[in-house]
């Protein structure tokens, strides 16, 4: 059975914007993205929204729904009461292009700052041999769909724009951890994690983990292990004494 829901959607561009009120039909089984599409089809054809898969796999439809960073296509309307106002705003941390679409190029810039996988010099592609147990930790991080919800929610940049330069964000610190734990990667990434990518900004308050739609344990499995590895090299004189590379 359908009903008329009260939606408040952010309309505007980088210079100005505001929430607009709509009454819009909702049918059984729908998600927030369906309703946004209905708005587009019936009331505001110029509403800008980014999406691709409607299956929670492309990472395009990130937004904030009643203040919570989520994928619009994975947020069921049945989680709201029929008389509840549903407020949809764009991701707050990135500059607005228009309506619900933000400019996420900060993330691409951060991705490029991380040196890519460096296999041993004497190994040609095709000769890589690895054991499953040795790559399983990194594989969890490969589930990332690059929705940037973690980057958006992390208070280090969300509340302090001035840290954007120095801080890569959870998604890219996780990338450093992924390569750091990779059995065939030869680069020394500890120092960079702290000095170049700003690992020390993270205060492990776990908001990245809380919002990740792929349920990657970013803090427990990537950031804290990376902090421990950095501590081995920078802050622990005993571990430095006994350290061996890439055991």
């Amino acid at each position, binding site marked *: 059975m359908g009903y008329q829901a009260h939606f408040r959607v952010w309309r505007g561009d980088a210079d100005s914007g505001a929430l607009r009120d709509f009454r819009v039909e909702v049918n059984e089984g729908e998600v927030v993205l369906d309703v946004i599409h209905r708005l587009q089809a019936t009331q505001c054809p110029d509403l800008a929204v980014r999406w691709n898969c409607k299956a929670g796999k492309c990472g395009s439809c990130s937004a904030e729904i009643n203040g919570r960073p989520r994928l619009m296509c994975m947020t069921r309307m049945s989680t709201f009461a029929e008389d509840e106002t549903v407020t949809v705003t764009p991701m707050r941390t*990135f500059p607005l292009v228009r309506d619900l679409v933000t400019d996420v190029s900060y993330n691409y810039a951060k991705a490029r700052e991380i040196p890519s996988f460096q296999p041993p010099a004497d190994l040609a592609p095709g000769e890589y041999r690895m054991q499953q147990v040795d790559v399983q930790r990194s594989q969890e991080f490969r589930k990332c769909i690059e929705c940037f919800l973690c980057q958006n*929610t992390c208070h280090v940049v969300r509340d*302090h*724009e001035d840290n954007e330069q120095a801080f890569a964000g959870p998604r890219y610190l996780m990338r450093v951890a992924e390569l750091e734990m990779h059995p065939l990667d030869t680069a020394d990434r500890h120092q960079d994690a702290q000095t170049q990518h700003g690992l*020390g900004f993270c205060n*492990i308050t776990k*908001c990245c983990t809380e919002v990740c739609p792929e349920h990657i344990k970013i803090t427990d499995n990537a950031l804290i292990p990376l902090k*421990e590895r950095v501590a081995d090299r920078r802050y622990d004189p005993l571990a430095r004494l006994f350290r061996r590379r890439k055991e």
Partner: protein
Amino acid sequence: MTASTHHPGRADTAIRTRRTDRWWLPPLLTFLGLTAFVVYGVVRVFMNKWYWVGEYQYLAPFFSPCVTGGCVPGASHFGQWLPDLGILAPPVVVLPFVLGFRLTCYYYRKAYYRSFWLSPPACAVAEPHGSYTGERRFPLILQNSHRYFFYAAVPVASVLTYDVVIAFHGADGGFGVGLGTLILLVNVVLIWAYTLSCHSCRHIVGGRLTHFSRHPVRYWMWTQVSRMNARHMQLAWASLFSVAFADLYVALVASGAITDLRLFN
């Protein structure tokens, strides 16, 4: 309240959060829980009595090990290698290590950064501070010493284990079990679970390895610690509660306010 800094180009920054749920409840509960523990701990330490029940050999966990000359007779199982420190009650010897372990714990850091420092109070709720440097500078850079507190926590937990063993003591001097024994036992199990589920422990036993396949035993240990580590928050709270409760129980028995419920001898 408004967001802490102005962000040109970003949308909807004038409001602190648009969350409609009770996001303030978890940090409030954390704040109250940790404050209650600290208040209890301070009162208890300055009380400086009622920590030893000679009849059943119960030693209150806050006062273990009791190594100063001020300790009541019978409570010092590991000798008294410090003089009576007067106003400084016996716990001042181990407390820095025990508190340091919890203060630098990755979970407690999250808990107090969120609830005491509001950095951030909850996800997608703006923090009230104008600037933020994280754990990069003194004093917070010292959080990197957590592993050393973990090393210290292992002997402390061992001492508490010894206390439980001797608490299987009956009124006639032989074997005995009371409710107090069981409370101390549950407490020490939780303390061990909390200690071994530590992130630094996880790193030390195997997390720092790149090739698990070359170290099957350490890989197995890492797997076990990882399983417990997923429950680290729950264990942090359970062991915090149990240590205070065990301490309170011994205090009540020692003061004569209640009598220990004896199950056997």
